[in-house]
């Protein structure tokens, strides 16, 4: 007995360690954290663009995007979640479900009312910004008498009102490695003094550097000076939580901590709600901000309390719980598959479908044979049954069949061809939703395969996620590629590994990455197609590359650089629509889905969906 227990005393913990890591194969979430978009121009319900299957499902389960007249104040809203926010710190948050919280507790300079996604509207700013100096200077004035909430975690907090310097510091702290903001370097790249500030952080990573291009001539004015006239992108990006004010004198002591700032656990908020408690991975509680002045912005804040409960890993039973319960809504997961069918058939009034402002595509590595040949890529797209791909995520209720890369609701979508996609003989390879083998074989012949199928060295690698629906999608792609004679070596791995070790690493990227896609940061073509198809992305981030097809076309790169500087909305939408078609002409990927966000709520909840992110707007939702 003694020797047995000794042996087991070694084996069991070792096996535990090995099985713990092996369980990585069970992980990974394919839930898309989606953003919504209307068809632009604002509407009282989620308007669907033209196109038979795209609009019919949306029309059956319309989202309410304005607060109903019958909305009452009071009550506790329970929010059912699978995972956690990415960061509770607004400076680091870069995840749409996190924005559901941030839209209620933060006040960036600009914001998004639920029914108006044509352009952001002033939130902390008192009015729309003034753009001068040929589009290189943006001036904001901020509202007076905006006060901070009590601090999360207790303590004295900050009693002084918000000043412009707080907004400046909020942005600058995003450069700290302890506040890993994912979009400051992207959307604020043209800020004067940014590179110097980045160099300063390298020397002292505990102190937020000064960005000389952000100035505060007085306590109510903040000025952004750019090196290029890319003001539209900057203004849009100022609707993200990074510009929600943070007083330096309060936050600096938390921001100096390494390896991570602890400001998030002690944050003070300026929205109608504030985070009163947060237990990582367990729960988040929002209460009314006692220092918020009702009516000071467009958020009515009906419920008294929002309680986010995390950890509902089985989303099917979580959806059932919401549909049959009371006071509940979903957070970071949509209804999919069986739960979506349940909601659609038995609880249709409690289901809403909203364009999520995102796409899904199968990336073909354009830098490696055989997909460095455009005709091979066109053959693959022509052969693909995109309807079968969509079925892996729930069929018509999952979203519209994609025919290009800008999804519905984003300016440029209609200009790129809308639901039908780009027209013309040169786009014949994308015009058959269920595939056209004859057309595919003709392209293979053009590529030099006289039989119409791959011959010779036809082995290609594919790395996918290893849990459904990602794994299901990969299997469908594999089967479709096999029809063209390719011998697909499929390697399913955990989703995070798929990105960080394979698909996003230029040197390691396989021939096919089937589970990629993009979701907007805000309603603009730049936010949708610049990063995933700009050749500059590849060289800028070779180990964190989001240009999965590795498309590096000089004409497209130049067009993207030029479009970024266009200020006129009509011209900007036309430019990005044209670029979308030019990208599609290069056939770098198989676009197959424009997601819908399928939100569910209990029967006593009056949910209001914010078309910015396709999720329930906590500040507008009420309980009957």
């Amino acid at each position, binding site marked *: 007995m003694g020797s047995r227990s000794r042996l087991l005393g070694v084996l069991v*913990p070792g096996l535990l360690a090995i099985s713990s890591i092996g369980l990585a194969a069970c992980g*990974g979430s394919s839930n898309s954290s989606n953003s919504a978009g209307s068809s632009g121009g604002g509407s009282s319900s989620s308007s669907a663009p033209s196109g038979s299957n795209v609009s019919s499902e949306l029309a059956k389960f319309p989202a309410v995007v304005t607060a109903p007249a019958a909305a009452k104040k009071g009550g506790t809203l329970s929010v059912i979640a699978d995972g956690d926010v990415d960061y509770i710190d607004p400076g680091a948050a870069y995840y749409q479900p996190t924005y559901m919280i941030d839209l209620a507790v933060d006040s960036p300079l600009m914001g998004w009312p639920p029914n108006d996604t044509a352009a952001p509207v002033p939130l902390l700013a008192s009015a729309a910004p003034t753009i001068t100096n040929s589009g290189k200077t943006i001036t904001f004035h901020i509202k007076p008498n905006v006060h901070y909430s009590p601090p999360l975690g207790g303590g004295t907090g900050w009693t002084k009102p918000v000043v412009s310097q707080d907004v400046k510091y909020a942005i600058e702290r995003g450069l700290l490695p302890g506040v890993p903001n994912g979009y400051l370097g992207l959307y604020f790249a043209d800020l004067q003094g940014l590179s110097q500030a980045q160099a300063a952080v390298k020397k002292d990573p505990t102190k937020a550097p000064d960005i000389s291009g952000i100035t505060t001539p007085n306590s109510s004015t903040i000025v952004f000076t750019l090196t290029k006239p890319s003001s539209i992108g900057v203004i849009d990006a100022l609707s993200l939580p990074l510009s929600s004010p943070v007083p330096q004198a309060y936050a600096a002591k938390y921001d100096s901590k390494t390896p991570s700032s602890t400001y998030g656990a002690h944050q003070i908020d300026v929205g109608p709600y504030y985070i009163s408690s947060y237990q990582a*991975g367990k729960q988040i509680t929002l209460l009314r901000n006692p220092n918020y002045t009702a009516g000071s912005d467009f958020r009515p804040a009906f419920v008294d309390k929002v309680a986010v409960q995390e950890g509902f890993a089985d989303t099917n039973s979580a959806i059932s719980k919401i549909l049959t319960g009371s006071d509940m809504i979903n957070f970071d997961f949509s209804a999919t598959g069986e739960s979506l069918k349940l909601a659609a058939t038995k609880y249709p009034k409690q289901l809403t479908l909203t364009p999520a402002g995102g796409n899904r595509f199968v990336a073909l590595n354009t830098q490696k044979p055989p997909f460095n040949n455009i005709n091979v890529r066109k053959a693959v797209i022509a052969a693909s049954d995109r309807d079968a791909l969509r079925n892996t995520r729930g069929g018509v209720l999952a979203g519209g069949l994609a025919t290009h890369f800008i999804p519905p609701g984003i300016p440029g979508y209609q200009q790129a061809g809308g639901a039908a996609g780009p027209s013309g003989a040169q786009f014949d390879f994308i015009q058959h939703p269920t595939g056209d083998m004859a057309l595919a074989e003709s392209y293979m012949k053009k590529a030099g395969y006289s039989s119409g199928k791959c011959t010779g060295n036809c082995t290609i690698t594919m790395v996918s996620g290893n849990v459904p629906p990602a794994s299901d999608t990969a299997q469908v792609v594999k089967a479709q590629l096999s029809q063209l004679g390719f011998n697909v070596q499929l390697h399913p791995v955990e989703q995070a590994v798929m990105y960080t070790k394979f698909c996003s690493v230029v040197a390691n990227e396989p021939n096919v990455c089937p589970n990629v896609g993009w979701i907007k940061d805000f309603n603009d073509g730049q936010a949708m197609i610049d990063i995933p198809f700009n050749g500059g992305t590849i060289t800028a981030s070779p180990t964190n590359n989001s240009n999965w097809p590795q498309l590096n076309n000089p004409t497209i790169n130049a067009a993207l650089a030029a479009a970024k500087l266009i200020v006129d909305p009509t011209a900007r939408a036309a430019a990005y629509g044209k670029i979308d078609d030019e990208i599609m002409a290069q056939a770098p990927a198989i676009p197959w889905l424009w997601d819908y966000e399928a939100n569910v709520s209990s029967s006593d909840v009056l949910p209001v969906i914010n078309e910015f992110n396709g999720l329930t707007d906590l500040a507008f939702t009420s309980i009957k």
Partner: protein
Amino acid sequence: MGRYIIRRILWGIAMLFIVSAVVFLIFYVLPSADPAVLRAGRNAGPQQIAEIRHSLGLDKPIYAQYVTYMGQVFLHFNFGFSYQYNVPVRQLIFSRLPATVWLVTGAVIIWLGIGLSVGIISAIRRRSLIDRASMTGSLALISAPVFWLGLVSLYLFADDIGVWKIFPGQGSYAAASTFPQKFASMILPWLVLAAATSAVYARYMRASMIDTMSEDYIRTARAKGLPERTVIRRHAVRSAITPIVTLVGLDVGTLLAGNAILTETVFNIPGVGRLLYNAINVSDLTTIQGITLFGAFFIVFFNLVVDIGYAYLDPRVRYS
């Protein structure tokens, strides 16, 4: 006995080092995700990723990281910082431990109560209808995966989505604020976690009792005229239960180490197992390492407790 205990403790410490080294090696050898890239986000450039990697200490050689980490653990009881949750790992684990302790304690009581009783009765009434029925039932419970059993129990008995709305459902433990609410919320998870284990214990106990009942001293006890009940309780069970003691120690140790992951996930109990699952998903090495070390500690500790208890139960066992 004292020297035995000291020797076991020292061996346990050595084993903790081995386990932690194995976890470190596995993390770097198998294609795990890059925590610095995950933390930086999808648009981060090389400089930002490098800065984050440096702030997390991931740019140092593996052996240097390991030495620093183990020094912090043993000298300062500091298990590092969670990449994902931005809080100390120790704080994370201790905040999750009560839920797992709740779950395991209740399940242990149930599986011991049911498993031992059924095993004893089956052994005494060997080949009877009760014996056959209980052993068939135990086989069915052993075969049923825990997660399946959990989901079925929710769909049948949960008060929110169940057919018969009897017990609090998924997420009720996290929402509970009073002791009665927490107790009620654990009934289904206890039953699910205890189901297969009680079946295993029933079979073990039955086999052990059958062996023991055929021993000479049992025949002697009967020959001395002792009532059958006394023979079973005082002589047979006491001997037959010693292997069960070992099993309990191992099972409790591994469950506290995170092996209740499936039950915790199905019922949304924010315990150590669920934390481990989340940490693996995002390559949060420090949290994985911390939980593994805690788990190894529990297993070593309970193994030691079991071995000491074994010596107490069976006077023939003496540790030199």
